[in-house]
């Protein structure tokens, strides 16, 4: 047993750190470090910088043009990006659909779709949830009917994250109503510029439109956009969900935000309030414990000696920590987190924020926004069902 990374891993970390330092635009990291609002250009700009270096698909194997990094290297890459203030990579293309295309798509599909994902040129969206299918994803109703060499798609997806920017969308669609709900689902790629696609942004409690409703009205999709076999989509989706086990904890970002929480607490004068400070200390212990849990998973993957089936635990704890730091930041500012001035949440605002500390402007918004973390990606209650299943049978 050894806590330290190997000299090779340390050197790798240094290499990543130097590159990120040199290539991450300062105006973007400034926004991330201060929770200011990010535009599509910020997100895609960083994606393209990574894409040019060949690191947007940082989890990809070499045969598909990825760097072929180990689990530990991927972790170190994500950590260095997070600590430097890089925006989170929008995962739908490089992290979510690409592995499915690699595993189950045909050579033609791989050639057609992977380069645009790797470069960051094509923005992908996820078409999973529907109004009637949240945690119960297998109940999706959006129909895809095979007519000749096309599918005709009708129905509605919702909670489509950043779908307003989307070029392409991967969807779970119903191609059969026979048998168990899981068996009639197919995995279909859809050009969002197709006729009959309507995207309607949903304004959320933080004032932003981070998610969308997507309507399909007799949308024609070429049959060649079907991944794998018809009615096998559920299997592919499960593969997608099982991919990338540790980044769901997002512990690196939480480490960065803990630093920010401490800065806010000092500015707001609660750092020396023992009652408040102890709450930060509890969060610090939580974050160290979560990081150890993540490192254990990485070590298990590295050696292959023991498998640690604790993705559910990582999701639950990681999301609770994200909510907690946002909550403590807001509470640290106290009454000065009350003014909800949206312009002050944008970079470069020159106005006079009530109380004089503009850094307080986005705190409530972030707190509101992060309520999503215990709901998305399989709600924490669903995760508890999964964990309980592994323990109790």
């Amino acid at each position, binding site marked *: *047993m*050894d*806590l*330290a*990374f*190997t000299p090779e*891993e340390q050197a790798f970390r240094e290499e990543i750190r130097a590159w990120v330092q040199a290539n991450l635009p300062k105006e973007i990291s400034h926004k991330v470090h201060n929770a200011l609002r990010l535009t599509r250009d910020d997100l895609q700009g960083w994606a393209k910088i990574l894409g040019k270096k060949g690191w947007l698909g940082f989890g990809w194997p070499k045969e598909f043009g990825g760097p072929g990094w180990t689990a*530990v290297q991927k972790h170190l890459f994500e950590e260095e990006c997070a600590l430097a203030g890089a925006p989170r990579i929008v995962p739908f293309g490089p992290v979510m659909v690409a592995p499915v295309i690699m595993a189950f798509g045909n050579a033609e599909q791989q050639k057609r779709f992977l380069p645009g994902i790797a470069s960051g040129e094509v923005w992908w969206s996820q078409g999973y949830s529907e109004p009637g299918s949240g945690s119960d994803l297998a109940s999706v109703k959006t129909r895809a009917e095979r007519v000749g060499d096309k599918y005709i798609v009708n129905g509605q997806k919702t909670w489509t994250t950043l779908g307003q920017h989307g070029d392409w969308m991967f969807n779970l669609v119903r191609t059969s109503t026979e048998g168990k709900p899981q068996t009639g689902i197919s995995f279909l790629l859809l050009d969002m510029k197709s006729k009959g696609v309507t995207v309607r942004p949903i304004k959320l409690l933080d004032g932003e439109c981070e998610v969308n409703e997507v309507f399909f009205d007799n949308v024609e999709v070429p049959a060649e956009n079907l991944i794998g076999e018809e009615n096998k989509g559920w299997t592919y989706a499960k593969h997608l969900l099982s991919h990338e086990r540790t980044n769901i904890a997002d512990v690196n970002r939480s*480490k960065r935000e*803990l*630093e920010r929480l*401490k*800065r806010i607490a000092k500015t707001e004068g609660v750092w020396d309030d*023992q009652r408040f*400070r*102890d709450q*930060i*200390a*509890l969060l*610090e*212990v939580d*974050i*160290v*414990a*979560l*990081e*150890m*849990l993540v*490192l*254990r998973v*990485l*070590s*298990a993957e*590295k*050696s292959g*000696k*023991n498998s640690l089936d*604790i993705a*559910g*635990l990582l999701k*639950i*704890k990681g999301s609770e920590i994200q909510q907690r730091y946002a909550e403590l930041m807001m509470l640290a500012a106290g009454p000065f987190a009350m003014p909800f001035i949206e312009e002050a949440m944008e970079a470069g605002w020159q106005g006079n924020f009530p109380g004089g500390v503009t850094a307080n402007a986005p705190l409530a918004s972030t707190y509101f926004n992060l309520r999503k973390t215990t709901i998305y990606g399989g709600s924490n*209650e669903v*995760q*508890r*069902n999964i*964990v*309980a299943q*592994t*323990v*109790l*049978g």
Partner: protein
Amino acid sequence: MDFDFSDDQEQLRDAVRKWVDKGYTFERRRAAVAAGGFDRAAWNELAELGLTALTVPEAHDGMGQGAIDAMVVAEELGRGIVLEPIAQAFMASSVLSHYAPANVQSAWLPRVASGEALVVLAQQERKARYRLDVCEAKAAPAQDGYALTAIKSVVTAGDKADAFIVPAQLDGKTALFLVERTATGVTTQGYVTQDGSRAAEVKFTNAPAMLITTDGLAALELAVDTGIAATCAEAVGVMDKTVAITVEYMNQRKQFGVFIASFQALRHRVADMKMQLELARSMSYYASLKLGAPAAERRAAMARAKVQLGQSMRFVGQQAVQLHGGIGVTDEYIVSHYFKKLTQLEVAFGDTLHHLGEVSARMQDTAGVFA
């Protein structure tokens, strides 16, 4: 970064587990509690397994193994809620080998290793609570060494031990001494503690003492940190078994015509117990891996670990009793004994609030496993 155990460590784990399963039954433990909470025969069996010698340097007839080996042993003994205090052997070995002069080392370390001498830390004073820098015990030079006067409370197996490691004031600062239990001026009043193990009030009146070190606070901190790491590991073993017992019960107990393991409210509680167990296991690894770090880093790590372990122990212990229902609060059924062990371990070497204060006072701008 590697959290795999070596083959030797796996073998060590198997050997200790086998002894616990076969040699340390619940009935035997119950008899040991009734007889006062410390069974010298069981202690000798631990010694025969090589556990008392585990961390003693090879030069003093020990096995010279490290913190992870000690962790493995403590986990497995925890699984069997073994009463006999192996942590004290690790602590004595650590303090004596790092701080004692050569003659004290060669006189005592081989006896610690063989199990012949149970050497325990006698540190707790009424006013100190969990602070290590509060010490009213006094020592003064005397013929052939020193004379020590103190009242030390809740000393592990205090009336069964062979010698004590005792902090006391010498020339205005804390020094560490070794005092034999049978020395003149030493009286003990033994009793059973809440988890069924043994402790004693120990009174020293001008008792003859050997100086271990004048750098007493640093040595005491090392002893206590060694104890914290062992306690964390022991607690992981206790919790692991507690969860297993609870799961087994839930899969055979029926109410409303079904196994209670089928109720979602209870299943989610079990998921939360599993969470606390795995966070605790992670921080137990962290504690043992940091035991060899420089003092400030080591102390901070132990405080963080004990905060996590304390919270986990409280939750797992309480929920295990709750999920058992009425049978959980009986003396006859095993789970209440695991609960009581967890309750006591939370307090051992500083409770959750104490260590939270330590974490709070030591916080830096950045934090993480490597910061």
